[in-house]
């Protein structure tokens, strides 16, 4: 009887330990990391190209198509996060990025043109939202299975 209980308990513990696997975060995605890097580059390039123009030519209309392209890519990243499991933190970061990107886009539209100081600050601050997103996605590479 004792042997039967021991065998049963051992089998139970084995099956339990072999199917228990703690999962707190999603799996790493190289595609998403690449898209984050490329879209951040696109976002920064939008501002850097404005700096190459004289101030009076740095209108919203001169780069509106570029804003739309970046916005579309940010939406794509957000969409992928929303369909991935264990993604709550990523979704929140992506929403913060999107909201502030749209805010900066609106400010440019309202201001008509931007000076060098404003552009430098926009670059620094939008990168402030890109950096945590990239850091988090890269951290998923450290998952040991």
């Amino acid at each position, binding site marked *: 009887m004792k042997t039967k209980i*021991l065998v049963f308990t*051992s089998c139970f*513990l*084995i099956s339990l*330990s*072999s199917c*228990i*696997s*703690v*999962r*707190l*975060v999603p799996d790493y995605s190289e595609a998403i990391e690449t898209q984050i890097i490329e879209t951040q580059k696109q976002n920064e390039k939008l501002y850097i190209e404005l700096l190459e123009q004289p101030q009076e030519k740095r209108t919203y209309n001169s780069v509106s198509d570029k804003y739309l392209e970046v916005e579309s890519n940010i939406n794509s990243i957000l969409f992928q996060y929303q369909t991935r499991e264990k993604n709550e*933190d*990523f979704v*929140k*970061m992506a929403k*913060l*990025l999107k*909201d*502030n990107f749209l*805010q900066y886009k609106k*400010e440019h539209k309202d201001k008509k043109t931007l*000076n*060098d*100081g*404003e552009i*430098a*600050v926009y670059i*620094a*601050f939008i*990168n*402030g*939202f890109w*950096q*945590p*997103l990239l*850091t*988090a996605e890269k*951290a*998923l590479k*450290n*998952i*040991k*299975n």
Partner: protein
Amino acid sequence: MNFDINEVLADMLNAMKGSIKDDWNVVKKSANNFIQTKKERLELLAQMRLIGAIDNDFFEKRLADEKEILTAELHSIAIVNKVLAQNAANAAFKVLENVIATALII
């Protein structure tokens, strides 16, 4: 079957400590990077305000944005910590799995 639960728990704890020790540098590095870029960003903002390149309204809006950046950074650190916790927990379960498998063979 030889199964000392205290010994197993000690081994599981050591596995977790080892896993956390390896991953802790990632947490530290991430946090330090955020602090460094925050310092540079705020220095730039202050300098642009001081030389009059940006007006007060713009300055205040960016200061408000800095709070949202901090929120994003904390979510990022949460992810880094969750990876650390996941690795540590799974390292401990791996020890348990191996011990039981060994004990059954003997």
